């Protein structure tokens, strides 16, 4: 079927395949309003929607090539270090924050404006169509799809009325047209079904707007916070308590529900079968916690990967874990100047970990320690240590000790996990007179230069909790369901118009003409018309021609 034979549909963009073919263009002079209308029509055209969709797909690519601040902040820092030349250019184009950049936002906002401009008139038109009668029967049914005829021995009135009932039973909305009305040669019934197809289409597009709004509003009203907790310690849901805290723009920080979570223990399970090719692989992580909401009773709970803990309107996720060795440092008199756990950053699957301890006060000099932890230490042929299993089977801690100005007094922020040794003097380690210190649990050793002593008291575990609050999640989820429901109905419910017209022959018999028209793709339409014609004519008693 060619496009010109499709019915005109003023609600669709002018370049929609169901819209009438544009005639010869006579360009009138456009006034200001005319230009506005012209640009609006351009913006809401199918071609623009298509262009913006493809542009959006292309615009999303750079954000996957370059690390993003939101998903990989450390990657961004590393990338900038490695590529100082191109960094200013990328920063200018906001590539490190692609998905909130001006240009990316511009594309999707234009796309949604185009979408709204398309959806509103279509909704109005669809509401009208829902109230309107099925359209008049076309004069020449043979030009339409699935055209077929049957001849029966009943009068036209009976035939058309039974056709109307049959179509109604099949879910069609029907309207009878009599010969008298304009353009109607004979008695006929016009039927239409599948209004849900357009409803689904509109629901799909409208729900996409809902998803976008939900994402935007939820991000603005919520927050995310990260906190490292060592076994035995607790943290409270409050601004000052998080290691990092990212509030949404409209978050009322007073509204945080006061609760506390104490990490009682963290229990990992590792593959221990010696013959297994997965030995050492984590099989399960469980954080046992005690929670207290407000002034309520403490309650036991667990947090697992994939099973966050809902508490006080937030969700608490278990995202990372490792060891936090407790080092006890004493001055030469034996007074404890430092004794607390320090979270070590895991470097591999066997939890070989790296930690930094800074001691600005208490000893005669400022001391910085760069420390490595091997939970299950084995000595390689080269003499170097490695960890062969993530559990604490044979824990060994090594320390390189530095003295000098740690740079903590000038007020500039420093990374707690990095020790800048450029202005420090190594007093124990590879370049010092004293060798690298090695400690097992419970071991104590004197620091060089009579500074004091250091003891590895114990090695508790730590976990990192992510706390998320997003009040819009149920809304986003609801709209996502509507997106799917709308998509399915708009793609798979056929919208059909079917006509049955009766022509009384000179011999008194009646020839029934059946034909249909589809809106959108509808490959089974001819078969459906044949089925209707067969069922209908057989019900009436088909005349068998000799």
């Amino acid at each position, binding site marked *: 079927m060619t496009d010109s034979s499709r019915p005109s549909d003023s609600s669709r963009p002018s370049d929609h395949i169901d819209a009438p073919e544009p005639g010869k263009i006579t360009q009138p002079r456009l006034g200001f309003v005319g230009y506005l209308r012209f640009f609006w029509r351009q913006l809401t055209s199918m071609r623009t929607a298509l262009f913006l*969709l493809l542009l959006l797909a292309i615009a999303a690519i750079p954000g996957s090539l370059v690390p993003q601040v939101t998903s990989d902040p450390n990657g961004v820092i590393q990338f900038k270090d490695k590529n100082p030349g191109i960094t200013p250019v990328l920063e200018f184009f906001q590539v490190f924050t692609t998905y909130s950049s001006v240009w990316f936002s511009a594309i999707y906002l234009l796309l949604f404006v185009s979408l709204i401009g398309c959806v509103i008139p279509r909704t109005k038109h669809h509401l009208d169509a829902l109230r309107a009668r099925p359209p008049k029967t076309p004069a020449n049914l043979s030009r339409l799809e699935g055209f077929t005829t049957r001849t029966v021995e009943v009068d036209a009135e009976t035939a058309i009325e039974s056709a109307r009932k049959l179509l109604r039973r099949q879910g069609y909305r029907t309207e009878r047209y009599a010969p008298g009305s304009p353009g109607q040669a004979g008695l006929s019934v016009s039927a239409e079904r599948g209004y849900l197809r357009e409803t689904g289409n509109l629901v799909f597009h409208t729900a996409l707007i809902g998803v976008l709004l939900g994402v935007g509003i939820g991000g603005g009203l919520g927050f995310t916070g990260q906190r490292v907790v060592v076994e035995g310690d607790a943290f409270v849901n409050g601004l000052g308590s998080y290691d990092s805290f990212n509030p949404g723009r409209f978050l009322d920080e007073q509204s945080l529900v006061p609760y506390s979570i104490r990490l009682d223990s963290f229990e990992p399970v590792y593959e221990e079968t010696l013959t297994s090719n997965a030995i050492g692989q984590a099989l399960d992580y469980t954080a046992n916690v005690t929670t207290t909401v407000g002034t309520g009773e403490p309650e036991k709970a667990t947090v697992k990967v994939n099973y966050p803990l809902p508490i006080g309107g937030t969700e608490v996720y278990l995202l990372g874990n490792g060891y936090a060795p407790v080092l006890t440092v004493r001055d030469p008199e034996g007074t404890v100047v430092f004794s607390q756990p320090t979270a070590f950053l895991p470097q591999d699957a066997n939890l070989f970990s790296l930690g930094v301890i800074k001691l600005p006060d208490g000893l005669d000099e400022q001391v910085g320690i760069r420390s490595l932890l091997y939970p299950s230490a084995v000595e390689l042929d080269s003499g170097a240590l490695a960890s062969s299993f993530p559990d604490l089977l044979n824990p060994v801690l090594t320390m390189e000790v530095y003295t000098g100005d740690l740079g903590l007094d000038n007020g500039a922020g420093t990374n707690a996990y990095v020790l800048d040794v450029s202005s420090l003097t190594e007093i124990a380690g590879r370049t010092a007179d004293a060798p690298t210190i090695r400690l097992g649990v419970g071991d104590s050793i004197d620091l060089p230069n009579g500074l004091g002593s250091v003891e590895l008291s114990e090695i508790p575990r730590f976990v990192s909790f992510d706390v998320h609050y997003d009040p819009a999640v149920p809304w986003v989820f609801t709209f996502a369901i509507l997106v799917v429901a709308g998509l399915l109905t708009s793609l798979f419910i056929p919208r059909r118009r079917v006509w049955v017209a009766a022509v009384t022959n000179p011999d008194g018999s009646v020839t029934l003409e059946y034909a249909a028209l589809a809106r959108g793709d509808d490959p089974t339409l001819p078969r459906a018309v044949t089925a209707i014609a067969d069922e209908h004519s057989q019900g009436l008693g088909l005349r068998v021609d000799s």
Partner: protein
Amino acid sequence: MNPTLEAFSLLMAVSSIALYALAFIVFALDLGTRAAPAAEAAPAAASVGIGSTAVLAPPAPPSTALPSITRWGRVGMALTVIAWLLNATAVITRGVSVGRVPWANMYEFALTAVAIIVGVFLLAQFWRRLSFLGAYVTALALLSLVLATVNFYVDATPLPPPLQSVWIVVHVFVAILGTAFFALGAGLSVVQLLQARRTTKGTGLKFLQTLPGAETLENLAYRLNVMGFVFWTFTLIFGAIWASRAWGRYWGWDTKEVWTFIIWTIFAGYIHARATRGWRGSRSAWLAIIGFAAVLFNFTIVNLFFKGLHAYSGL
């Protein structure tokens, strides 16, 4: 874990490679030896008979019927069924050997994806006679399995905690189903483009004469791609639900999320293109092919070279 069963699974996978190779050869021979049907050959012969004053006979209108299966096509189909059975056995035994779904790393994903793509292809034969896509599908299966077995084979290991979720069953399975429909759709779109070129330029591969016109091929491709799009939408949504359970946010522009979004957007564009005047036909076919290329890119290049949260278990 059961190393014996794991080894058996690998044996089955390698055997299926051999049979896919055989099936491909037979399907290729089939395409190469297909002759033009009598209906199209006859007018050409007639015009020769008229001699120098010949008026070119108008080209026969493109057929809308799919060709019935040839004898070689039947052989190819039979080989494909056997290859598929071996492939499916490899998938199942791999899963049983380690007591979990067999799609937790690239090797397993490729193994299962090939089984599902070929499975959908075989099932599609009950819907339409698409045996002419056999060479394309078996080539895809062959290449994927060889690359996966040679480059990405890893021992079967239990799932790490982040993957221990029912969503790995749903999310990944739906993604593979979407991929399967996109793969078939892209194959039809390629044939459609070849057919369209043959119709306009008058030259092209000979077997195209036995195939229906570009418009029929396009309609078939559209219906498959729409199925793919629905499954891909589910992939996105199930992935978001899982991400909100495992990572604490339903969407975070992780590299794999970005590419899943890009693919969704391309196919959304494809569906719009089909409804835009001037874009139906070859242009929208190109979009479908680009979309499937993005799916392959997402699985290979993004997995291997892009840093992201979807990396577990080595590969």
